């Protein structure tokens, strides 16, 4: 009696093929998780997104801002943001200038405790600006970054009415000398993009990089091994207007 040849047994061949397929599918299903862990170990902040590939829904980019480290009078994050994104126009009415990021000074009424912090688009998981946009120009990318499509924004400003953080600006004037990587447009609404053009190259947002105090941290909130996720897990942090349940991607420490 001879041992059966596995390769010549049709049933075995079928099972082997089917098992292989299942294993492949399993690998594909598990791979993103493994890949994430690898990224988490290799780079605490970001990893470049390959050209032509979609943003990953397993990632949620976010910021942690330590208001306690934010120095009064310092505008380095604002300057870096506006230089990086070509937000340079200075109109006679300052309320008509775009402000992608601004410093807010806070004094608690009861205690008089004073602090300050940078405020920008909070990249909500449930963004009201996206809900109200009539054309879908306001959108949330798979990785949590909230953006405005310059080609479909009609400039109705409904998103500005809806944003609880006053994070959006309307371009009130013709623009010149733009940064090619950051297209802007007269008559369109715009806001912090989390420097998506830099993030896709594996870099940090300009504001984070510019802060001399290291008050801002950028990373993947979904990756438990990332610095930002570990910090959020270990210190008390605040979501601004948490009562609205918008689940912002920007968290604050020290307020």
């Amino acid at each position, binding site marked *: 009696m001879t041992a059966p040849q596995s390769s010549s047994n049709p049933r075995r061949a079928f099972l082997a093929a089917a098992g292989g397929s299942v294993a492949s599918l399993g690998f594909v299903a598990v791979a993103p998780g493994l890949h994430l862990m690898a990224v988490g170990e290799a780079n605490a902040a970001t990893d470049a997104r390959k050209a032509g590939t979609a943003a990953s829904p397993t990632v949620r980019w976010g910021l942690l801002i330590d208001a306690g480290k934010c120095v009064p009078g310092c505008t380095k994050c604002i300057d870096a943001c506006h230089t990086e994104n070509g937000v340079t126009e200075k109109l006679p009415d300052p309320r008509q200038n775009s402000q992608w990021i601004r410093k807010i*000074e806070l004094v608690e009424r009861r205690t008089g405790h004073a602090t300050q912090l940078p405020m920008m688009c909070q990249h909500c998981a449930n963004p009201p600006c*996206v*809900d109200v946009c009539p*054309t879908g120009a306001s959108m949330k990318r798979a990785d949590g970054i909230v953006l405005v499509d310059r080609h479909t924004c009609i*400039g109705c400003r409904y998103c500005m009415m809806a944003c609880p953080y006053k994070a959006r600006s309307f371009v009130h004037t013709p623009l010149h000398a733009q940064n090619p990587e950051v297209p802007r447009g007269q*008559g369109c609404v715009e806001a912090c993009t989390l420097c998506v053009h830099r993030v896709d190259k594996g870099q940090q947002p300009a504001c984070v990089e510019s802060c001399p105090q290291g008050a801002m941290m950028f990373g993947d909130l979904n990756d438990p091994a990332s610095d930002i996720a570990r910090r959020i897990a270990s210190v008390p942090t605040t979501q601004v207007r948490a009562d609205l349940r918008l689940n912002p991607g920007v968290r604050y420490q020290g307020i």
Partner: protein
Amino acid sequence: MFTPNPRHEERLFYVLAAIGGLVSAIGLAAALYMEHEGHVVTGMNNQFVWGLPHVVSIFLIVAASGVLNVASMGSVFGRVLYKPRAPLSGLLGIAMMSGGLAVIMLDLGRADRAMVAATHVNLTSVFGWNMILYPVFYALVAVYLWTMMERRMNPYSKVAGLATFIWRVILTSGTGSIFAFLVARQAYGSALLAPMFIVMSFSWGLAVFIVVQSTMYAWNDLHLPPLILQRMKNLLATFVAAVLYLTAVLHLVNAYFAQHLDFERFILLGSEFAGLFWVGQVLIGSLLPLALLFHPATRGRVVWVNIAALLVILGAFFQLYVFIVGGQAFPLEIFPGYDVKSSFMDGAVDHYTASMPEILLSLGGLAIAFTMTTIGVRVLHFLPQDDLVELEAAGSITD
């Protein structure tokens, strides 16, 4: 009432049409200027996102829906008195909707992308719904007018009228919901706004109808039957009182919530808008018209009923100005319990002044509605024809 000399009547029509056309053209030119220079030439900014053009266009859109109530009273609710008035109410509905949409579309930052708005519709947005609500409104009113003015189509006018009635209730609910769906602003975000806008539309639309109807009767040297005047002024008074009631409820409920108390104090007592609210909306737009519509010395006279209707229209502009501009003048409460300040007007009450291009664009929208109405009533048969015998019967039996 003003009655032109028949010899000059035709000339006067052309003068009115020319003035309307000219102001419409100036409004269009203002929009082109804004489009070319950017909104830097307006008084609007990142604090006052919406301004005077939105006040005027929302008035026209809301009143356009409401003016059709006259038609609905006849077609849907079977009121004999209103049936001959249905075609005129349809014309006014289309004319005011056109003026209102023209202003709001021309104020867009990218008015050239109207086609994008029509082809990319986000159905979670009330503005997105508008891309469906407005075209269907036009279509339904056009069909409704056809069924009323073409004798062979008369049997279908009740169905068309019912469809129009339902549609405009949805449409005006949508207009109120534009503000009702704003989660973060103290002035808005109330479900009450949807029904409130519907009642506002009834009031403003009827006021416009009364003024236009009276002008047409005077133009043709006719007298409005007293029964019609009486019914319409009673209906107007009911709507004005209902708007006042809903306004009171809205503010009382808001004032009951500690989180909205600062805003209520601001809008009702401690700001430039408090005077506009109490004097403009409450006194001029509500109490004075109610007094004129009920006082024995004025309630039966066409001229006083018309003055009351004009005051209701004036009050509507005050109301929307306080609601839209006043609502944005108050700072967003991003950090409750904190005093805040920034380079972006955080924590600060702001002041809005409309610029000339905005004023001209707004007037242009009103002029579009005026011109369409003037030409419409001239070239087509919109003057109500009352059967007095039927009217008397209706007055004593069904109405």
